[in-house]
């Protein structure tokens, strides 16, 4: 029973939790907190069981549950897990659990907050488990609503703008995805939403047709669909021209939500590309790979430069915000993922998926850390600190660890993934990769600069008696720190999980 429906249990436990939390009296704040903790802990345990029972040698979906849902439309409730998704599932359950701990201090609208949070977790887990496109889409959107409220209600001063922007952007992306979904269904024979069925050769056959008076051949139409799908996912990643929602949303969201946003939501775009675009439209993916590589490069460099500008720009011009710096650095780091994905080499793709995981852990740490300091001093101005290193040594140590992990210091997990990405992409795009390595320097530059501004130099007397990290905060940070270090020294536990599936994915491209 448990093993057969493991994934369903995992996805729907938070939903049950949401209902329970919603029914608790709002005066019992601690009950709400503890039950939320429980209902994020249970999925964590379930994902642990999943991890232990996961067969690394299999490339296909495991723990599959597939039952007919809407027979007239051939929609299935189909969930399963493979090497591509398992790391992200683990990341999701872990971060959700940690974020509940990090949300302990929230007072206003506690019940609503945790209900939304649990719904969000269910949505995220659903996305990573679903392999029916329709189900995937439902979860994809399901996650949007709680996110909107979480940013919009519990966010910072410009929360409304941030929330609506996030919402509009993502909705725009997802309606494009909807078109592609319907087109896949229509052009597949037999009609199906099953991603695995769709990826089989010969199922999808496109026709030539006219759109707006422009006649498209079948191949061009497939490319058009790919681009639609790509934009849908690109907005989530976010890829360069579609990124402007991100700094704002990250900055305005409350800390735990920023963590989820950066740690998990950004991965969904890349995951979607790998799960849907790659296997189903391999030729189009291949056709697009040059552009993807360039976009990856742009993300890397552009994100890094914008992050650096956070240090140089005064506050009035929208700079000087630590959280924004981290947000932009996320853009830069997701660039590595894109770069790795754009080359169909073993190193590249493993690097990309591993980078997704690593970015999840490091950036989660970063946002949690910003939250820690924000809780104490109620601002995030990079200029507003100075010399905290001796006042809050443990905090400093964690920040340094997170910063160094983000800038790809060897021995920490991001390094492995970045190096894999580079080794992979160098084979295909040597010159481009060389330019991309600039990103490493730029990343180092702004992270170190920020580190210096905040922790080094003469002590700002205002913060003479700043409190160091509390036990609860330590609890949220330590697991991530351990992951960062352990996987940095020995990455195989994570890479082993994804190996078979990614190799299988690559076989699709070997003939191209």
């Amino acid at each position: 029973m448990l093993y057969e429906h493991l994934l369903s249990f995992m996805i729907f436990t938070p939903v049950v939790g949401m209902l329970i939390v919603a029914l608790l009296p709002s005066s019992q704040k601690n009950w709400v907190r503890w039950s939320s903790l429980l209902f994020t802990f249970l999925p964590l345990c379930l994902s642990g069981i999943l991890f232990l029972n996961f067969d690394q040698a299999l490339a296909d979906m495991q723990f599959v549950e597939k039952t007919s849902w809407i027979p007239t439309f051939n929609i299935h409730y189909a969930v399963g897990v493979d090497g591509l998704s398992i790391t992200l599932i683990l990341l999701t359950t872990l971060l959700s659990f940690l974020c509940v701990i990090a949300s302990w201090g929230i007072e206003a609208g506690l019940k609503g907050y945790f209900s939304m949070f649990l719904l969000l977790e269910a949505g995220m887990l659903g996305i990573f488990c679903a392999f029916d496109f329709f189900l995937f889409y439902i979860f994809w959107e399901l996650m949007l609503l709680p996110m909107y409220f979480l940013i919009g209600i519990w966010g910072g001063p410009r929360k409304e703008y941030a929330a609506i922007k996030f919402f509009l952007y993502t909705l725009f992306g997802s309606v494009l995805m909807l078109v592609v979904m319907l087109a896949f269904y229509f052009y597949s024979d037999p009609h199906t939403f099953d991603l695995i069925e769709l990826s089989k050769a010969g199922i999808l056959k496109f026709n030539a047709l006219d759109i707006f008076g422009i006649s498209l051949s079948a191949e061009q139409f497939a490319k058009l669909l790919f681009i639609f799908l790509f934009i849908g996912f690109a907005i989530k990643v976010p890829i360069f021209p579609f990124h402007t929602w991100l700094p704002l949303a990250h900055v305005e969201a409350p800390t735990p939500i920023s963590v989820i946003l950066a740690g998990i939501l950004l991965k969904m775009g890349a995951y979607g590309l790998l799960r849907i675009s790659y296997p189903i439209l391999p030729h189009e993916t291949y056709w697009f790979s040059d552009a993807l590589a360039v976009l990856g490069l742009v993300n890397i460099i552009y994100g890094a430069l914008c992050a650096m500008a956070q240090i140089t720009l005064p506050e009035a011009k929208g700079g000087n915000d630590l959280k924004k710096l981290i947000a932009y650095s996320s853009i830069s780091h997701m660039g590595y993922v894109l770069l790795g994905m754009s080359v169909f080499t073993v190193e590249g793709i493993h690097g990309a998926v591993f980078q997704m995981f690593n970015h999840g852990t490091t950036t989660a740490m970063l946002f949690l850390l910003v939250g820690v300091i924000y809780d104490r001093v109620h601002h995030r101005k990079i200029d507003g600190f100075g010399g905290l290193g001796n006042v809050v040594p443990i905090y400093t140590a964690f920040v340094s660890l997170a910063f160094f992990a983000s800038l790809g210091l060897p021995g920490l997990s991001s390094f492995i993934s970045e190096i894999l990405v580079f080794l992979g992409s160098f084979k295909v795009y040597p010159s481009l990769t060389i330019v991309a390595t600039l990103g490493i320097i730029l990343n180092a530059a702004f992270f170190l600069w920020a580190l210096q501004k905040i922790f080094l130099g003469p002590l700002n007397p205002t913060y003479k008696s700043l409190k160091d990290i509390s036990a609860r905060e330590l609890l949220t940070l330590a697991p991530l720190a351990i992951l960062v270090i352990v996987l940095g020294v020995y990455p195989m536990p994570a890479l082993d999980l994804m190996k078979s599936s990614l190799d299988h994915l690559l076989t699709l491209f070997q003939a191209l």
Partner: protein
Amino acid sequence: MLEKVLWLWLTPLATAIILLFLGKRLPRRGDWLAVMGLGLSLTLSLSFLLELFQTHTFEWREQMAWLSLSGLSISFGWLIDPITILMLCVVTTVSFLVHLYSTEYLKGDPNYARYFAYLSFFTFSMLGLVLVDNLLWLYIFWELVGLASYLLIGFWFEKKSASDAAKKAFLTTRIGDMGFFIGIMLIFYKTGGLLTYDDIFKFVAQGQFTGEFLGIPILTLAGILLFLGAMGKSAQFPLHVWLPDAMEGPTPVSALIHAATMVAAGVYMVTRLYVLFTPEAQLFIAYIGAFTAFFAATMALTHTDIKKVLAYSTISQLGYMMMGLGVGAYVAGFLHLVTHAAFKACLFLCSGSVIHATHTQDMREMGGLKSKMPITFWTMLIATLSISGIPFFSGFVSKDLLLAGCLSFVMEHPEHLLLALFAFITAGMTAFYMFRLLCMTFLMPAKNLKVIDHAHESPWAMTLPLCLLSGLSFAIFFTGSLDGAGLLQVFGSWHDWFNEVILNPAPLDEAHGNAHGPAMALSLILATGGILLSYLFYLKKPELPQRLAQNTQAIYQTLIHLYWIDELYQKIIIQPLLKLNTFLADRDNRWIDQKLVDGWKPLTTQTSKGSGHFDNIVIDETLVDGSAVVVSTSAIQLRKIQTGKVQQYVLMAIGAFCILLIAVYFL
């Protein structure tokens, strides 16, 4: 064997971790733990050295799987051969002595335990760098020593200059590291996924490493790229700017990291990967090295900060080593690394001792310390003699070999005369500025009595390392005989193997022998000249330098300002970069965000109007500007057809009806 290696290597890591977490609770904050740990490492490395002396050959390797994907496997492996053993000894010796020295030097510092943790961590990383057998791991430890250097330079981070220096060091070396990394990628790509030294060497030896990129043979390119890493780490021109600034760190750190070990990692790397460097790449190395040697020496001439002078001297000496490697005298280059480690560490520690006593780094404040600090003076004198290349001292042995190598190379390729010119002039300058330093610090009459008054000899924990290191500055330890053959024998087996794999073994030995005599003579003359000159300038006629400076104001200012290189970098790299950032971020906010992509901005502002945040002007402006114009303007315009007059509605309906009809008619 593996256990021994692991003990040797991981003990410093273990102590680092223990000190980091528990340091504050241990008695004496755990410094003894660090010292003892290093002692263990030192003992083990010395035992390897002993074994090496007995057997003359030593080779041990061990590999374990680390990262394996289908079609790609990167292993972690150790490789111990004579060169490794020597490096191990250098690192552990200096590190041990520096640990010991630091127990006094940093006494009472609030972050005493952390200091030792960093120091041990550095030692661990440096040992790792030396021990590993593959390029990727070399890069990993390469970066980790960089991190340790960052942490230690910025140890007194409350000083802004220190934190600036730390950042600068990390970033500057990282620029070089990018070259290194690209080189690794290139090799990885060309060899089809090989990263282990041996595999790559074999691949190269089989002549498979071919191809061109932009007209440059790939192998040369790879060599130059790898060397870029060495340029960063070993502070070669033009990436040398970080090293003088790095003197902001505690002096023992400067001795360990920025004189003896880490900065020599570049030299080690080039030596280790010597097979990969084609003659063209070697020439590049030689020129960079020679120029750096000369260039840094000139800057050392005028500086008055005792540590900075030593820093420039370090850069200069590293340039020497590089030049040696470039001209094919790799044994000499590497030997110079070893001897330099000893005397330069000694010099730094001496300067540390002086600073500890006088609380200043400005040599103009010092003088007359000889009587106050005799041990420091004598040890420093020995080290200075050694670096100046005076016979019977270690510096003489290695430098002589280097210069001979250079000379023989130039004799063979006269078009590269510049190399020899740089090398020999530098030799003279080295002697001059080192003695200048010695004179200004110890021998000249005291200038600032306050400084002198409370100066005193340092305690034993500081002087003992001085004595040991100055002892190691005697030639005897490196040669066994005066011609330096003793150590060369150690290299024997390695040497032969080297010659086998190098495609065109440079038949240096013979030419080397010929060049030996003239080189020795010339260098001795120059060194003596330099010493005498400094004697003249600083003891005989102390007003001379002043006058000279005034007469050659242009040169003097250039030197004082270090050729304005920092300013240049600021102007051409950093400022444009910052401008670009600002521009992009602004663009991100303004253009893309508000105008291009953010079609929704006007909508949002429009609604915010309700909440009273934005006034009409803002809305109008954004409405007119953004691409959202399409949506929001048309929205507002479209609404106007709803006039409220029902008869107009009907009229419009009739109009639309007619239009439809006409449209259909013409279809």
